[in-house]
């Protein structure tokens, strides 16, 4: 049996990596990918706990994960559309150059 704690450690590490990516990367696309990493790690956590609890509770956890996957799809679609729009306006995907909030 796989210890739940191990699953959580792996998931958390991945989450931290995703967070780091969001913070330090300048490429919007990679920032989006980092967000996918974070969502993925949350999914892993849910599945780990679902396994630990088992039964109908675990099935509910799987249901949640399923919903999150769908949500991630929606997020990716909209996020990438925004990237395309931004690129069309600024001719770049570097977040340092997309700083309307600064002005």
């Amino acid at each position: 049996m796989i210890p739940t704690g191990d699953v959580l450690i792996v998931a958390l590490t991945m989450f931290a990596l995703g967070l780091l990516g969001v913070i330090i990367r300048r490429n919007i696309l990679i920032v989006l990918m980092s967000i996918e990493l974070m969502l993925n790690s949350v999914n892993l956590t849910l599945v780990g706990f679902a396994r630990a609890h088992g039964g109908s509770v675990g099935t509910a956890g799987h249901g949640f994960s399923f919903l999150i996957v769908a949500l991630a799809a929606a997020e990716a679609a909209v996020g990438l559309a925004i990237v395309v729009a931004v690129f069309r306006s600024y001719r770049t995907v570097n977040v340092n150059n997309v700083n309307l909030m600064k002005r």
Partner: protein
Amino acid sequence: MSFPRFTKHAGLLSVLLLLAIGGTAFAQDATLVRAEQGNGLLWVFRVFAVLMLATAALTISVRNAVVAALCLVGTLISTGVLFLLLHASFLAAIQVLVYAGAIMVLFVFVVMSVGDADEHEIGISSGLISKILGLAALIGVLFVVLPQFKSQIVPQAAPLADTSDFGSLKPIGRLLFSDYLFPFEVLSVLLLVAIVGAVMVSRRRSADETVDQGGAQ
């Protein structure tokens, strides 16, 4: 030292992908999964966990966006393997099909469609503060939260019966169409909205519609 170009690493990535797919096939061996005896399965878990974290680290560190996308595919497939090990077979399938398949195709498509080669080579933020804060957050999260996962409050799994259909399509489907029908339907509407929104945002505007956009067009 510039990071190696995508083409030079095609070989490495191919190996990673093969490993991932092979692992999936390996983990799908039902007898092995059900047995859950000894350390064999634990080792499978450890290998794929390391693979997942390594590819994740690569995703956020390589300069080239295409490479990053491919690394992310490796991460997602590895996660799928972990799902299988955790008896979430349906989710593992969804993970590979939707995540590693559909979403990543979308990513690669956008990566390829925007900008030229230089745009794929944007590195790490130049700001020192961001770097420090980011690392501090990473280390802090790892060192503050991680120790708890060893404590007794984390529930541990019990072995499943051979006949258990836990994690398979049937119970999940039943659940989604009974107790979680409303969230499920809302989610379908959300997807529709996302599609329409994506089309609206990214559609090319005609010249007269264009607001001043810094002379970019």
